[in-house]
């Protein structure tokens, strides 16, 4: 503040900047510096470099060779795993996201009552989300073991003679992964977000609905769910982004097997990059994948304008 008069004279260029504005710029960018270094060094820089690599053939050992659009052409025409891994990823997302979003919402609605002992249930539902992913995958591999697993022992006990092979069976491996993820996420962040959303619904609305003769189901259907649409939307968008990128659980449990049945698109990129060292091709796959995810997110945002109800608008 003391050097306001002096700094007035140092105005450069055509536009005059007030000393206050200069101060804002100085401190704003000063405090932003660590993030700016990270943003350019770890995000924009590498992102642009991978865009360049996507037009090359690069095996890390020798220098990248420019191949123009060949990687992009090859993925659509020559790669057997491209379409199948894309379809598998879509299947996983289409099944797991609705189950997970509506499952969490259902649990939150159940927990949002003034019943005795409800905090015990809330803590219990939340606990599996604290189990590290690697630990929960290993736990479920043992639980779902086709011969000695607890689940199949239970199913045999119920009279099912030929229970599924779960992770060992290519028809059941994706459902097994979905089960692991549902166990580890239904009661976690999503459910808490729904609970917070439920607590934001004004009680007068329920009172009014009751006066109009609405029962519990009708109140849920016509008050709770419409007012939760912003939360449903938020969880769905994040859920889709997460589900499409999934492969950690598949990698730890089955490494894409059996018979490529859990070979998701992100795993395909990973294998191309770090097992086969086809860095250029992997970069092309990654860029294609980023475009798909961004496009899907934008489509969802478009759709949300008609389907999401915001209070006070």
């Amino acid at each position: 503040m003391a050097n306001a008069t002096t700094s007035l004279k140092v105005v450069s260029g055509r536009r005059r900047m007030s000393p206050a504005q200069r101060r804002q710029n100085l401190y704003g960018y000063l405090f932003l510096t660590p993030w700016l270094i990270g943003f350019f060094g770890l995000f924009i820089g590498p992102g642009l470099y991978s865009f360049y690599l996507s037009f090359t053939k690069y095996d890390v050992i020798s220098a990248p060779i420019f191949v123009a659009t060949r990687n992009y052409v090859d993925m659509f025409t020559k790669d057997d795993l491209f379409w199948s891994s894309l379809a598998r990823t879509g299947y996983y997302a289409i099944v797991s996201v609705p189950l997970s979003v509506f499952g969490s919402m259902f649990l939150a609605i159940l927990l949002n009552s003034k019943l005795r002992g409800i905090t015990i249930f809330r803590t219990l539902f939340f606990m599996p989300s604290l189990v590290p992913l690697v630990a929960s995958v290993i736990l479920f591999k043992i639980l779902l073991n086709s011969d000695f697993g607890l689940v199949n022992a239970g199913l045999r006990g119920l009279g099912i003679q030929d229970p599924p092979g779960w992770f060992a069976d290519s028809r059941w491996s994706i459902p097994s992964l979905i089960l692991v993820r549902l166990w580890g996420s239904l009661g976690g962040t999503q459910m808490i977000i729904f609970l917070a959303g439920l607590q934001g619904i004004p009680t007068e609305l329920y009172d009014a609905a009751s006066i109009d003769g609405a029962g519990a189901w009708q109140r849920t259907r016509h008050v709770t769910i419409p007012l939760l649409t912003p939360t449903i939307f938020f969880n769905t968008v994040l859920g889709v982004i997460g589900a499409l990128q999934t492969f950690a659980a598949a990698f730890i449990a089955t490494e894409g097997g059996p018979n490529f049945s859990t070979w998701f698109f992100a795993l395909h990129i990973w294998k191309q990059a770090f097992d086969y060292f086809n860095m250029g091709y992997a970069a092309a796959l990654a860029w294609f994948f980023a475009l798909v995810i961004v496009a899907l997110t934008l489509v969802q945002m478009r759709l949300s304008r008609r389907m999401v109800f915001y209070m006070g608008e």
Partner: protein
Amino acid sequence: MAMMPPSTPGTPTVAVAPQAIIIEPGSTSSIRQRRTGGKILSYALLTFAGLFFAIPLLWTISSSLQTWQELRSYVPHFLPEMPQWNNYIQVFTLVPFARWMLNSLTIVLINIPGTILTATLTAYAFARFNFVGKNVWFVLLLSTMMIPAIVTFIPQYLLFFNLKFIDTYIPLTIGSWLGGSAFMVFLLRQFIMTIPRELDEAAIVDGANPLRILFSVIMPLMKPALITVAILQFLADWNDFFGPFIYINTMLKYTAAVGLRTFQTMALEITDPRDHLLMAGAAIMTIPVLILFAVAQRYFVSGVVMSGLKL
């Protein structure tokens, strides 16, 4: 308001009643019946869901205390014949599990101060200063959350490879000292924006510079948000699999997550099935998270709520 039926105080009960959808407002007996039915149904559903979550947790503990013969028997033993506490010792003697946990902890302890310092600085810039280009930078910050990690993972790996950072913890920690994750910056910015600007202005009158204001006025008030960020950072590092998996080659430098996964298949002096030991390892790896949760429960919840609702 006097006409309000007695069934609608406070938080609504959203239990689905099996009978009667139409109720006369005022017929208390039918409401009471309906409520009891709803309660029973609610408890039934809660218990069903509770079992779904509890059985795998309980099975982790039970199976980690069994012998491998018990665990591999055709008819499962719900409780170990004789608790094999030795399993837990074996995890530490067969593989360097203590070392792996310590490595995970080291990464956590490097990253938490980094995120707290640099993400707060970034958030402070966005929340309090009107610099040129602010909105553009903010949109760019948020858009980084949408791009799949794998897109930048490949070139980042090449970058660290060329810088000879492979098999060090630098690739796993540098990000947290350069602003941390976009998500945490966003969370902290939201929090700073709730702190009244009058406090800053009073400090300016007292002659404090912006950095001084941040450290002695704003940060003390941010304690709940900072604890939340520390917890989120802990969870991110403790659970991270691919980072350490790709950057760390030396077995003694593994983190607990990578170590546990490797333990499934690595060559050891014993050749028996090791499911019971893997279960013990899974339990050991989860314990620190549970302790943290027990200590800081309310920050877990507030963090999620803060981050989730306003995006």
